[in-house]
């Protein structure tokens, strides 16, 4: 693998890499191109890869006619609330998990792994019944609640890792200097934890923003639908000319997580976050 490959070997490697680039890249190019095509080019018999008269009309239309704007606002609301709540709830627990070894912590992390096995359909019916009982079915609050619970295990795992990276000695030094436990947390731990808090908040924001199944089942009122659900309903509307706004809306729906991944890209490709998926 690491020896000098022959010239044919190298050529083969580049051929393979090109193959991968085409497989991974062309569908993305097609989405971009469709999003900027005017209706006339969308319905023409033989579509082109690059739009000849690019337009932003599809973006305008996606927001005005298809009410994706409202769905995007709904998604923004739900995702922001989930992110803030997840961090607030996970913060104390992750501190406890990192600083004290308790059986409960092990049980909680074991649960994270176990729960991966179970299909959503087992969870969704009881959750639906519980939310209906407390009057939260078909509300954003109910959805936020589910997203927080769903993001919590991974958020806990992530945050406690960040807490562990803060040297214990710093806290000890502060308390030797006479700081109370609360002061130590506020002055020493939280400032150092800021990157971890941001990362955790981003993670739960993105998982709420992208989530589809719970949003589909739990929210029935069309006005309350989140962006993925609104887009999925939009797919049902036939007509080739509609593909433009659909592609435009899809692009916008991808933006937040694309930004997130761009920020995390270096860490992702270097593999230091690879453990994340094993959680």
């Amino acid at each position, binding site marked *: 693998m690491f020896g000098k490959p022959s010239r044919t070997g190298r050529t083969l490697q580049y051929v393979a890499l090109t193959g991968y680039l085409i497989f991974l890249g062309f569908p993305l190019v097609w989405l971009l191109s469709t999003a900027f095509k005017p209706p006339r080019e969308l319905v023409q*018999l033989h579509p082109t890869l690059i739009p000849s008269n690019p337009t932003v009309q599809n973006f305008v239309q996606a927001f005005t006619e298809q009410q994706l704007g409202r769905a995007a606002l709904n998604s923004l609301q739900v995702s922001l609330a989930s992110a803030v709540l997840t961090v607030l709830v996970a913060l104390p*627990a992750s501190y406890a998990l990192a600083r*004290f070894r308790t059986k*409960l912590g092990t049980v*909680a992390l074991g649960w994270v792994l176990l729960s991966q096995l*179970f299909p959503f359909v087992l969870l969704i*019916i009881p959750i639906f019944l519980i939310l209906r009982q407390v009057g939260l079915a078909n509300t954003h609050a109910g959805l936020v609640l589910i997203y927080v619970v769903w993001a919590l295990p991974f958020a806990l795992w992530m945050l406690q890792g960040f807490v562990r990276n803060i040297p214990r000695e710093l806290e000890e030094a502060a308390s030797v200097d006479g700081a109370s436990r609360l002061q130590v947390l506020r002055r020493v731990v939280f400032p150092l934890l800021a990157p971890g808090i941001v990362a955790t908040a981003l993670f739960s924001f993105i998982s709420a923003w992208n989530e589809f199944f719970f949003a589909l089942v739990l929210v029935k009122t069309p006005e309350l639908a989140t962006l993925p659900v609104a887009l999925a309903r939009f*797919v049902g509307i036939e007509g080739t000319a509609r593909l433009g706004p659909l*592609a435009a809306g899809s692009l916008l729906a991808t933006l937040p997580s694309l930004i997130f991944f761009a920020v995390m890209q270096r860490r992702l490709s270097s*593999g230091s976050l690879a453990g994340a998926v094993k959680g």
Partner: protein
Amino acid sequence: MTTVAERPDVARADGPRRARSRSDRLGIYLLLLPSLLPIVVLSVFPLVRGIYLGFTDARAGRNVEISFTGLANYRELLGDELFWNSFKIGLLWAVGVTVLQFVLALGLALLLNQRLRFRGVARVLAVVPWAMPPVVVGILWKLVYHPDAGLLNEFFHRVGADGLRTNWLGDFSTALPAVILVGVWAGMPQTTVVLLAGLQGVPRELHEAAAVDGASTWHRFRNVTLPAIAPVVVAITSLDFIWNFNSFGLVYVLTAGGPGGKTMLPMLFAYEEAFRYGNYGYAAALGNVMVVIIVALLAVYLRRRLREAN
């Protein structure tokens, strides 16, 4: 209260483990409570209740009496042709996607682990599908497969192979393979990143030593690289399999189970049973069967891998 009692972690760091005072334990539980309570109420409890529902005749609607029916749901499942059909499709989908994902991701990871040009571009591209919401991935590929305005059919037209043009997602014979390809595309990035991390952990010295001994590239891959990344491979393929078997949103958007149930994954089938026909008990029973099958298949797979390792 003494300082030691307030900071038991410090005391424990260098001394032998000592019993924690009651107030400490209370404090820890108070810190954990805000996280554990929601998890128990909205994750553990629903799951247990969901498993139980699989043994009842629960149906949609308010104030419906639920009675325990034992194995009646499972007897019905055994004779349900639609279920068996969906189960077969689910297995084809999960195994197909997982295997292809792994093979393609391993190839890409090996390439990205070399000093090639365009490696940076490939690394970025390899992650983008991961960043997309499953619904958007579905829409994206619907555009590619579109019978009139799609990229794929247009490509076949341009290369003069008009005979290959077809309604990919609407045709009985092409729908499932087309959907599997999308599954591979969507899940490959994550697998690639994990495998790449595994490859970067393989000690270079091992390769050099093997090369000095005259081992060919293939032999070095087979006898040095593969054993070194085996734990990563087992972990990611197991997870991929679970995720694929339980996947929903992608195929829901692409085909919604059609044409004629050709892509009706078990999750879609269960969703329809539960929320279109209101058969909660039956859908939960289906979920239970899926868990048992996943666990059984994973057990067989992991046991074989373990035996190979020894």
